[in-house]
């Protein structure tokens, strides 16, 4: 896949040496945790905290994740709902905590953002993309964030402008940039295509 330099590069989760482990996933990201578990030492999950946002995968992963017997297991309806718990967890974390993020770019980006704010070195965080390539975009005009964008162009859910979804990505905002696609001639209305699946 062709990409540009502002966009994060995702890897493959692998168990790290550490006193405790915080694993966060949404939807198909759960399968990355299950794959990591196959390579993990026996006592790994005794010091692990799994935070899971099932999204479109419904209840297909819960049983397998719980079967790993993590010390703590959380399930939440959205990134926003999970945020207070994450903030608390990071604020109370001890040295030697390892973080693992898996799933959509929106999940990885927002959790990464919260971790950086809490003083975690981003280079120490493992990431793996799984599932949807739907994008989180910031409208450069009104600054509103539109979640789960799958089309090109896309409509800003705040101001309604038709936006070209660029590859340019801000880690600080955990979002791609959206710029009005028909600013030169508003009578030109390009067809939307589903391209971020």
């Amino acid at each position, binding site marked *: 896949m062709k990409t540009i*330099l502002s966009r994060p590069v995702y890897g493959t989760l692998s168990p790290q040496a550490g006193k405790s482990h915080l694993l966060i996933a949404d939807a198909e990201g759960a399968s990355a945790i299950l794959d990591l578990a196959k390579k993990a030492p026996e006592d790994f999950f005794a010091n692990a905290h799994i935070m899971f946002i099932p999204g479109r995968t419904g209840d297909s992963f819960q049983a397998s994740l719980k079967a790993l017997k993590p010390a703590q297991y959380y399930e939440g309806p959205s990134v926003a709902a999970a945020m207070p718990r994450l903030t608390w967890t990071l604020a109370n974390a001890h040295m030697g905590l390892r973080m693992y993020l898996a799933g959509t770019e929106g999940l990885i980006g927002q959790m990464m953002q919260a971790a950086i704010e809490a003083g975690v070195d981003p280079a120490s965080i493992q990431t793996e993309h799984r599932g949807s390539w739907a994008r989180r975009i910031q409208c*450069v*005009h009104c600054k509103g964030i539109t979640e789960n964008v799958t089309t090109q162009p896309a409509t800003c859910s705040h101001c309604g402008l038709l936006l070209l979804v660029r590859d*340019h*990505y*801000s*880690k600080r*905002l955990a979002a791609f940039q959206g710029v009005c696609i028909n*600013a030169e*001639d508003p009578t030109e209305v390009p067809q939307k295509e589903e391209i971020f699946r």
Partner: protein
Amino acid sequence: MGINFRKETFRDDFTFRNSPENIRRFPFPYHEDAYMYSVNIEPHVPGPKNSVFEHLVDVDEHYVSEMQDRAMVLAEDPLRCQSLPHMTLAGWDLLELLMTEKAASYPEHFSLTREGDRWHWINRPLGIDDTFTFGDVSTLPYGPMEYITRQSQGDFAILDQRDNNLWMDAGMITTQADWSLDFDIGMNFFEWHAPVPLAHEMGVFTRALKYLTNIQQGKPARRLNWTMTINPRLDTSPENFHKWGGDRLTVTPENVGQKVHLRVELQSFWRLPRSNALVFPIRCYLLKMDELVTVPKWARRFHRVLRDLPVELAEYKGLTRYRQTTVEWLSKHDDGAPTSPGFSPD
């Protein structure tokens, strides 16, 4: 003799224009009849009298009106000026740099008196007379970067240097060509240049970063960059693109001379002494096509450059809609005669 500051606008009725003397000092950016990316960085040293390089920080006839336009942009959108918390010291560095350069180069317009940390700054064109304590933010009406860049032409990006990279961690950006400080703040050198086509593959940014991270205090560097703008609009921000993008459809063979502008950025790079940050002033100069063709060499050369520009570059610079109309208009000012090497008007 002082500068005769013009009263003019960069929006609505667009009364901006250059005096004949100011046209001659325009930083024409093409040294030959073609253009392609290059690192083209050179030492920023004082240049010939009556050029924009005469003083290291240039103040020209548009100063007062540009500062009024900046104040309007900031009133509409304060996010154009941002500074991450660790950048305040660099803001003081920048304030010192701009005040000392201006006061030394233009004593009839600016003066700075320092008694220890007590500084007295007079900016006559803008009617400012302030006494403050250097290093004490509470003694200025704005943070130090915002305070001084509300009084200085051009955009300013302040780059923190760490991990062998440069980080866009503060800026005053109100006259930008298609990039958003609010989006790019916190990015490193490669990240904020990510959308630029062709240049990454050519290794331009790797070489440029190596050069920039080695810039020493007291040895600034500079380069020119260019694009084009319809109407003399300073605020060509992506934030307002939906408001000004339509201008590009208004170009006709009859109005090219007045509407189409060559927009040149004089970018300079300075090491700041206390913070070790780099400041990157991006000074914008506008020239109407009618003004450009008063210099025959520039008319010939710009016609050839614009006609032969690679499609990707024209697209990236946003010239596609009016390029052909402008090339045809310029062709009437190009008799095919050879041009002399170098930038100068002849």
